[in-house]
């Protein structure tokens, strides 16, 4: 492969790739992101390959395994070009029909099209589907068109043109100025202005400087960074190289968590291919600018996603945070000026360079510009990744894009910002989503997870879940976080088991206040958000647990009771056979009975009782 030595050679290569591609030739794009792979995408790919080979169509039809376009709920996703017919929920058995009907004859396979659950209206193309129609897909929109394992796909769509523009026409100061004017804020959660971060790293004295991509996406419920790194790694890499040029760095790192094996693989492949093309390494595009990147796999530690902890991990140490009064843009990795940004932040950079800061700034709200990818998950009909302009309301995201609440229960609220965020109650859903509005409600943007919860989720239990999560992820270096979380967990456990005291709420608030003030890093300072926001918005649930010993959501095991309605029970023995405690026996009268003294309230009987029967009663009777 020829290393590119000039902007002309890059343009020639791009034209050459484009000219070889026939836009009219049928192309089967199959999502090969982790979500679809879990739903069987691999067998769908194989079925297409086999069938097309069997029918001798290899020259006429192209198959592409692409990045994740976001609609994971309906995987496996298959798009048939040139028309762009969008099939959802495809299984290997559907493949012959798709080839025969759609590819060869141009007909539609009706049952594989998206159908509006209410109106019954079918959608043929991507933008007919409500899930996509209301999005603004600047970052993940290209995923379905790109094979992340092939740099040519990225180049064909104009990839690395921003890099060329920067290297051949802009000084580092001009690049920083453009990013500053775009008002891009860090997408990892903090929302710090990216341009300002770059500027202070550029100005900081020192020969050696570093740039780092943070793909240690530890927030449970967030997976946008995974989708970008897996699905379009070159867009992140291009942003990274531009950042390196802007601050004067020659060495960069991509820190990916090992829980994302496909992201590690695709990022590594992207680096190799970029090097072969002369877009990375020595003398990039013949300009004399040298820059190379190393991949570092995270070893499974939530706190290591914190910027200073991540730098410790890169140095081969335990991933614990450092004191924050030292700015990493001045003294970061190995004590040198360092810029660390999130995956999505870097992916925005080529867009800003190509379209200009003004265009980027025209999208969004007063203080949050551009688009943001959210992971919309939990009890919502259309789960997946959604990219919307900043400022769209939570209600629009959940109802217009997400298609409303799944199941029969009512909406309780949404949890945003991962373990550092809070819970926003259903009545505040008109809130426009941006950095400041979410903070005003006691939550935060975080990396962008929106977890929809319904009445089955107990607010106390959810707070306890996050506190427990952070308890095991706290590095233990500073006392407020290490001890504060443990004491909060103890109190929440007591409340959940019906042992809560009236003074507990005040104690929780006092601990929270202290942790906010005195913790070393953001993990401890924001760890209190799930507790404080649930107390603020769902106080009556805490009171029900403490005063009435009752769990309104029927979720806290110690406060629920299972019994069998003798009128309904058909004595099928299913529950008795599956009860792990042997707590269920058959009464002489031909129905099952639960021995309450043996019952551990695991709920297996409730799950296993046939849907047509539903004889198990689950209740939280409360006691004085």
């Amino acid at each position, binding site marked *: 492969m020829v290393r590119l030595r000039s902007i002309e050679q890059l343009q020639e290569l791009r034209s050459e790739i484009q000219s070889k591609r026939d836009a009219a030739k049928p192309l089967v794009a199959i999502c090969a992101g982790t979500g679809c792979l879990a739903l069987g995408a691999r067998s769908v790919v194989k079925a297409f390959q086999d069938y097309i080979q069997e029918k001798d169509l290899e020259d006429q039809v192209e198959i592409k395994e692409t990045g994740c376009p976001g609609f994971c709920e309906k995987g496996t996703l298959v798009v048939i070009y040139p028309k762009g017919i969008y099939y959802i929920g495809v299984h290997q058995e559907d493949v012959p029909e798709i080839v025969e009907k759609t590819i060869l004859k141009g007909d539609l396979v009706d049952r594989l099209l998206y159908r509006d659950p209410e109106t019954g209206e079918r959608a043929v193309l991507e933008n007919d589907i409500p899930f996509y129609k209301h999005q603004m897909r600047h970052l993940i929109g290209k995923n379905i068109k790109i094979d992340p394992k092939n740099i040519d796909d990225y180049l064909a769509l104009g990839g690395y043109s921003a890099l060329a523009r920067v290297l051949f026409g802009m000084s580092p100061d001009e690049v920083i100025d453009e990013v500053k004017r775009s008002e891009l804020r860090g997408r990892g959660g903090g929302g710090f202005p990216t341009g300002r971060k770059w500027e202070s790293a550029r100005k900081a004295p020192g020969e050696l400087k570093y740039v780092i991509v943070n793909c240690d996406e530890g927030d449970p419920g967030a997976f946008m960074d995974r989708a970008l790194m897996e699905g379009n790694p070159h867009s992140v890499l291009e942003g990274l190289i531009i950042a390196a040029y802007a601050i004067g760095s020659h060495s960069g790192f991509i820190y990916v968590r090992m829980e994302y094996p496909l992201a590690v693989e695709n990022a590594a492949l992207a680096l190799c291919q970029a090097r072969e093309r002369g877009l990375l390494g020595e003398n990039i595009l013949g300009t004399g600018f040298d820059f190379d990147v190393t991949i570092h796999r995270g*070893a*499974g530690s939530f706190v290591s996603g914190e910027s200073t902890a991540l730098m410790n991990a890169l140095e081969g140490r335990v991933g614990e945070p450092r004191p924050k009064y030292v700015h990493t843009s001045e003294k970061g990795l190995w004590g040198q000026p360092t810029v660390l940004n999130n995956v999505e932040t870097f992916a925005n950079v080529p867009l800003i360079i190509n379209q200009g800061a003004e265009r980027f700034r025209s999208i969004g709200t007063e203080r949050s510009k551009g688009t943001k990818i959210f992971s919309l998950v939990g009890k919502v009909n259309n*789960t997946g990744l959604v990219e919307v302009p900043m400022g769209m309301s939570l209600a629009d995201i959940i109802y217009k894009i997400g298609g409303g609440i799944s199941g029969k229960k009512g909406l309780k609220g949404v949890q945003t910002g991962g373990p550092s965020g809070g819970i926003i109650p259903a009545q505040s859903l008109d809130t426009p989503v941006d950095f400041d509005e979410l903070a005003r409600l006691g939550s935060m943007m975080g990396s962008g997870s929106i977890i929809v919860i319904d009445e089955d989720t107990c607010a106390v239990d959810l707070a306890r879940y996050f506190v427990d999560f952070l308890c095991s992820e706290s590095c233990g270096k500073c006392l407020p976080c290490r001890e504060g979380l443990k004491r909060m967990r103890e109190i929440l456990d007591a409340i959940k088991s019906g042992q809560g005291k009236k003074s507990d709420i005040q104690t929780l608030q006092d601990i929270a206040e202290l942790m906010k003030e005195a913790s070393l890093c953001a993990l401890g300072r924001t760890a209190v958000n799930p507790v404080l926001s649930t107390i603020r918005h769902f106080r009556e649930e805490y009171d029900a647990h403490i005063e009435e010993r009752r769990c309104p959501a029927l979720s806290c095991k110690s406060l629920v009771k299972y019994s069998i309605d003798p009128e309904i029970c058909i004595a099928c023995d299913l529950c008795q056979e599956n009860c792990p405690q042997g707590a269920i026996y058959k009464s002489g009268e031909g129905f099952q009975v639960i021995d309450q003294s043996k019952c551990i309230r695991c709920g297996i009987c409730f799950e296993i009782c046939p849907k047509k029967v539903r004889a198990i009663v689950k209740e939280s009777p409360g006691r004085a």
Partner: protein
Amino acid sequence: MQDMQDMQDMQNVQNMQNMQDMQNMRDMQDMQDMQNMQNMQNMEHKRLVEMIEQHEGREESLIQLLLDLQSEFNWISKDALREISERMRIPSSRIYRIASFYEAISLKPVGKHKISVCMGTACQVRGSQKILDRTEFKLNVGQGGTTRDMKFTLKRVNCLGCCAIGPVMVVDEDYHGRVTSNNVEGILSKYD
């Protein structure tokens, strides 16, 4: 840190049906340890040295080395730690601290199949606790534990990033989406 581990161990103990189980398990693991050590001395030792040599002299790639060893051998034995310490000239206390800090590195031998039940928020609100409970019940092990026949090791993980299809359970490299507590058994029966 130490305290945290104690807590976790405690939990494991509680999850065991009784102390006898625990003792049997320890005996099993000791035996396994010895067996592993013998094997190490032969074939694996050579491979271990080879892998260490790739990183020699670069202290910063210690975590990467540990991850490589983890994926090659499934766990890191005391002997391996000692070997790394000597060859990389890093105090073994430091290596132990790192190895015990990171979740992905195991200092105990693990079973033939690794099960990860995702306990991320999205899976959690869709009932992953029930999946974990059911798996623990079926295998008769607690989280982090290995079955007596060394067939399965069960772990809870924080988020696997397939939140849209939760609850998710991963066995070895196979992702199982939309798991219900009733099909846990079916999934487990695919592995022998």
